[in-house]
């Protein structure tokens, strides 16, 4: 037996086969007392145009249940954090965290922030210059100066 094997591991191609959402946990923190948590708890009080029921609606009361049903793969944790601004913290599979302060935001804005955290990969933001990044070999192979030219004869 002249061939020896080298030990390797397979590399994940998330989305080929199974897709694992990178955000695995969202923690929602609010303060029961402070006014900046109002959007988290209650929507703001517009002077007119909304019914009473709607006025007192809130993200955690109304939107969270729908959001959690739509994203069962994310662990949602709701806990008070007294004397602090409301915040949503996303925990990602790489072990990183992202926190967004949602003080004085309406519930629709809070939902936007939660979706932003849900869709993030957890990586630091960086500029993407190449349109495609792939671990697969290119169809035409790596260019070599010693090949391919001979066809012109």
């Amino acid at each position, binding site marked *: 037996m002249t*061939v*020896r*094997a080298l*030990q*390797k591991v397979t590399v994940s191609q998330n989305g080929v086969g*199974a897709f694992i*959402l990178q955000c695995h*946990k969202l923690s929602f923190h609010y303060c029961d007392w402070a006014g900046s948590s109002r959007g988290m708890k209650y929507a703001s009080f517009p002077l007119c145009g909304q019914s009473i029921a709607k006025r007192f609606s809130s993200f955690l009361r109304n939107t969270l249940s729908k959001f959690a049903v739509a994203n069962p793969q994310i662990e949602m944790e709701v806990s008070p954090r007294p004397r602090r601004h409301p915040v949503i913290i996303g925990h990602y599979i790489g072990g990183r965290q992202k926190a967004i302060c949602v003080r004085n935001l309406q519930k629709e804005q809070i939902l936007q922030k939660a979706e932003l955290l849900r869709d993030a990969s957890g990586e630091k933001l960086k500029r993407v210059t190449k349109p495609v990044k792939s671990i697969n*070999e290119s169809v035409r192979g790596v260019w070599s100066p010693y090949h391919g030219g001979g066809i012109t004869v």
Partner: protein
Amino acid sequence: MHQSPASRTQQSRFQSSSAALEEDFVFEDDDPSQSATLPPTPSSYPSPLPEAALHSAKLAALHARLGLPKKLPLQTMARTLVDPSADPNTRFNNASLSQLGGSIMSLHVAEFLLCKYPRLPMAILFAAAGAYSGARTLTIIAQEWGVDTAAYPGSEVDPGLLQFSKIAPGTTIEDSMGLSLRRRKRLAFYKSSLEKKGTSHNEAFGDVLPKPGKEVDPKPTEDAYSNFVKAVVGGVYIHAGRDAARKFVREHILSRHLDITQLFEFKEPVRELAVLCKREEFEYPVARILSETGRRSRSPVFVVGIYSGTEKLGEGAAPSLAEARIRASVAALKAWYLYSPGNNVRVPSDMEDTNAKPWEPVHIDIGEIIH
């Protein structure tokens, strides 16, 4: 350590009434000062109770994240996360599930590799199987699923965390394996026999599952993680059936990327290729210069092709003729070994589908080149 089932059930009945309140994590209002007033009691169970699985958001999220079938209950899911080193009772740990799942996983990996690359040498086949379902890979997979480890196992731990007793920092892995002398000898023998054949030791092949109730010693994180992934496969198989298990293995394990051309390391490729051509009754391989540049310069390049008759088998470019010839031979040998009938080759387990087409025999190679 092995408890009789009766004692366990009795205890659990007791536990469910008295201590279930303590473990209620859903509304935890545990005042630190309050909890400190109670003298700390060592948790009466080595692992969380099955009821606790229903209240763990982490576990439910993991279940959904893996896209597991609804038939797989959360209790079983929680059981897959309990390693034998955390709870020696086989009724509550994942030993049985992981043995079953490991077999199913290695079945699918092996048939996938053998059908896709029918000519792989034994060593490469083992290495590829290890790359797909070895402990290191399974550890990475479990971590990419977002499974964290508990610091210390116990009944108060969130059931969504992997529980096993960790090796204390500073101990070497060999000492801490906690293997019996007999088992260590057996492993050593197996290792040496594999190395004689040119294979390195691979756990997926030949590692015997420890007897239940005996393995409470700390173990490496890799082992615990790989047992967990295997146990998930076993749990899917038991609750949702063969098809679901096969789908799960395909989606999570076989869908990963492996550059199989990188696994080879030849010793004498030129001679091996000559032997191959003789065995297959091809013409003797001849190295021919396809092109060259700067022969007498400091950095020449030779492009050498290996020809058998008029057909080119492989080619390689190198700064010397000898090296280029080796590269060309390696390319030719890899081209031989990595013959594949196609990307979507059928495997025997595809016949389990309800309306499967009749089976067409796959290519079976006569074996690797021996010289």
